[in-house]
């Protein structure tokens, strides 16, 4: 087992991807930034100085305090507090958690849905292919954010109010996930059309393998490259979409605020000069999205030497 992992590591260290990664400063920096942010979100309960969800620990006397370096600040709240006396630093740490969770989950949903539909569409062809691609065309002509808004609105109408707050997170993941599958499906379909006619697939068919096994064990590994690139860039888009929906007030409920919700809360205090309530979550959001975008750009170039 250990030798297998060791060979895996040495193979990774020799690979072109790793070489290109080490020689692209923007990729290294953004990987570090993204890594730090993800770890900080993951270990929020350990790192955060306060628990922003523990209502008992909130003290209204601490409300609207500026960051610690300001003359009126308190070192107990490094980045200041919001209107209810919540520590901004802790809120940002817990908020990134929600944002990343929704982001990853909806990318996963889009990816599974898009890749399977793309594989089926490309391999089966015929009417099924036409049907899937027409649906994709129609959906593609509407912006993802509009589709996510609509799904959320319909869910609000179908579910009773208290149930909706309870499962709002799942509704959000579903809405963002459904709005993003088309890119995957189109790319995978194109790649599958190419792979389908190659010798190794014909050979597999010849020895009597079923279509599902061929798709899973032969074609899928060979079309995953571009899927990874799309997934990285899609993660940035999904995080932005979640933040936007939460900012618009139709995303996650206020009881589990994401970065977008925090910015929304702070937005109303912006005019009275209390900038820190929304600016710090905004910085975390932009740092996250920017680093993921830069990683995606690098990955696209690294996997596609033609583009250079």
């Amino acid at each position, binding site marked *: 087992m250990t030798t297998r992992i060791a060979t895996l590591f040495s193979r990774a260290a020799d690979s072109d991807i790793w070489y290109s990664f080490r020689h692209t400063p923007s990729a290294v920096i953004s990987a570090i930034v993204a890594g730090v942010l993800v770890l900080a979100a993951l270990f929020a309960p350990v790192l955060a100085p306060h628990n922003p969800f523990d209502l008992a620990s909130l003290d209204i006397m601490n409300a609207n305090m500026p960051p610690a370096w300001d003359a009126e600040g308190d070192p107990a709240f490094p980045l200041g507090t919001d209107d209810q006396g919540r520590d901004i630093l802790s809120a940002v740490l817990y908020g990134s958690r929600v944002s990343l969770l929704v982001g990853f989950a909806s990318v996963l949903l889009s990816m599974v849905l898009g890749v399977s539909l793309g594989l089926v569409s490309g391999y089966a062809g015929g009417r099924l292919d036409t049907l899937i691609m027409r649906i994709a065309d129609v959906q593609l002509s509407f912006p993802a954010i509009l589709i996510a808004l609509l799904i959320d609105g319909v869910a609000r109408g179908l579910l009773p109010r208290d149930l909706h707050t309870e499962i709002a997170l799942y509704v959000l993941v579903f809405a963002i996930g459904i709005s993003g599958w088309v890119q995957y499906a189109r790319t995978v379909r194109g790649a599958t059309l190419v792979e389908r006619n190659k010798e190794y697939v014909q050979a597999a068919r010849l020895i009597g393998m079923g279509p599902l096994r061929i798709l899973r064990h032969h074609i899928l590994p060979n079309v995953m490259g571009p899927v990874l690139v799309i997934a990285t860039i899609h993660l940035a888009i999904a995080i932005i979409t979640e933040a936007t929906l939460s900012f618009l007030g139709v995303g996650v409920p206020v009881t589990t605020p994401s970065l977008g919700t925090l910015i929304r809360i702070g937005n109303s205090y912006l005019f009275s000069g209390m900038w820190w309530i929304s600016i710090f979550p905004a910085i975390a959001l932009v740092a996250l999205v920017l680093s993921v*975008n830069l990683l995606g750009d690098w990955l696209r170039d690294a996997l596609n030497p033609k583009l250079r």
Partner: protein
Amino acid sequence: MLTFIARRLLQSLLVMLAVGLIAFSMFRYVGDPVANMVGQDTTPEQRIELRQRLGLDDPFIVQFGRFVADAARGDFGISYRHRRPVSELLAERLPATLELSFVSAVMALALGIPMGVYTALRRRGLLSRAFMTVSLIGISLPTFLIGILLILVFGVQLRWLPSFGRGEVVELGWWTTGLLTRSGLSALILPAITLALFQMTLIMRLVRSEMLEVLRADFIKFARARGLPERLINFRHALKNTMVPVITITGLQLGSIIAFAIITETVFQWPGMGLLFLQAISMVDIPVMAAYLVLIAFFFVVINLVVDLLYFVVDPRLRVQSA
């Protein structure tokens, strides 16, 4: 060309019917339309009577047919929340959204295309690198954040520009315009920039990559070999050949401006359709949601049709083929 247009028209009609079906299903099956229209103290008999008057007991296909016929005349029923015809509500707010979208689209095109051409021609120039960096930030900043930052700097700190509302408007028949008054114009600046920035960066990146692709083509090398001046090569040969993909994507982007206006309108409290739609979502005002969906789909279909026709204007090869 005529068969092409006819086919496209038929496709557009099918798309509109599909969207209409979704809108109708939303109206019919999300919540009970009757319960949403009447008060608490309505008797069951009155409810049944209203049900029959609305024709909710008719077969599905009849109801859908009636919905389509009504929608084609612009009748989308009555808003649950505002208790007024949806078409009236939308018509009131349409000018605000269209003016904002139009100004942003012009801004995005007028800045995005020259920036894209410049960054493609001077790839390693300092200004090009600056443009590319700014564009990356532009893509990574969510629209609502750009709006907030602009409000913070120009509205709160510098106090140069108004940060909410539409300013004074002038009525021209049923159309209200903010383009003719000073306060209307100054109120338009920040929202228009907010909405344009993202589209501008997309257009710039697209023009840049298309230009780079075309500049590597053989006919460009040949034009160079013939000794044509650079200006002629860049603009007559290269730019012209990037136009088909640029028009396609730009067309789609212009459509999405109207949808992205939802966010901008919320940040700046701009009294447009997007704000109405968002309020409709949080209040589950289904008729407004359905009507907005159909209207947006209609805009998209029209834009796509115009884009297809523009191909013929831009690319003479298509005209020869189909003639």
